[in-house]
């Protein structure tokens, strides 16, 4: 796997981590909670090399 592809997965993991952190910190808006989780889907699928 080329270095740039490895960096891409690192970026994906970082963004997924930030979204998860925001999801945990969110206390009021259910909409925002749902949005954080939805945005995480493609990142998780990419990290798992599914899609």
């Amino acid at each position, binding site marked *: 796997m080329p270095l*740039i*592809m490895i960096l*891409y997965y690192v970026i994906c993991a970082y963004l997924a981590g930030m979204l998860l952190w925001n*999801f*945990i910190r969110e*206390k009021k808006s*259910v909409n925002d*909670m*749902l949005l954080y*989780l*939805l945005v*995480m*889907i493609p990142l*998780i*699928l*990419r990290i*798992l*090399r*599914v*899609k």
Partner: protein
Amino acid sequence: MSRVWIVKSILLLVIIAMMAVAGTQLYKHRHFKMPVVAGLGVTKVAKLSDYIEGLKGTVADTNVFFLEGKEEGGKILIIANTHANEPAAILSALIFVENAVVDKGTLIIIPEFNNSAGRNTRPGDGYPLYFKIPTDWGSKKFRMGNRDASPLDQWPDPDVYVHYPEKQLLSFLDVRNTNRTWPGRPKGPLMEQVTYGAMQIMRQEKVDIAVDIHGAETMFPVTNCIVAPTKSMRIATMTSLTVKSRERFENHVEPSPSGFRGLSHREIGDYSDALPFLLEAPLPFLDQPTGPKTVDLLLDGKDPFLLSLSKKKKLFVPYDETGWPMEKRVGQHCSVVLEIVRQYSRKFPDKAIKLRNVPRYADVVQNGVGHYYHDPNKANKADVYFN
């Protein structure tokens, strides 16, 4: 547990369930192995990585079937699934792999050329993940792929794809399109390595004819045709005229544009001694103004919106209530390949190729495509190959 955490837990479970359902389907699709029964004519099966080291162990590696005659003659290479969302190509190639017998010359077949694209899909367009072809012993299941290789295997895309070696600027997507990356290079992006591997087969095996099988929209002018550069034009024209007069189907000839780089019918001719031909059969499934992209549309090509457009003369092929069934498309490909071989053998008798046991247009239309596939469960296990 507070109310907030109850809501969060429910949301998390719903999203995980959605991801698991969709992810499992996509994972299974990517790892689905399709059996191919090597027919009596197959003398050896190689891998594309035998011709380019860099593909070994990657998803882009694929099977290469050799059917060698007892008598020396010319050599033909058939490439299918360059675009894995044009399935008449692989269906035609498998008819040759499972049935053809070569008496003179050599037939080389790569049924799943862009193996990565065959494991990719287009969920945004509602592509089905699989389709089944009815056979005499049940049905044979195929993966429905995409036009381009999966980003899981080649990433990132550039802003603009600079073609090698002509330096023409192409769409960024074309870096994953194996009909834009010809002639390729050994250390380039993965899809350039795939096309380079095929060029190495042509150079090392001294291939005389290269046929790349495709499908195209009915609203696209380059459809239902043979695309050929100047060096292949005579044989393409004779083939077109002969199938029209003898087998009663249209397959006109389109010249390969010299200024449009990266295509098989252009670069194979320019960078090897082989005569390239690109075959296009109509594929209503690819047209934009259709109903849902269902398996039925893929297989029978019937669509009310295209029928309406046909009545307004907006299509480039004849189209009526019968659509464009898969049997017609595969039958055309089989007949055109056989006719190219016959015309080549007439022109170069010292390099003639003699093939038998391959059905022609009328046979496939009458018997169906699946009639020519063998049951992998009843075949000798040593003859079953998976891609």
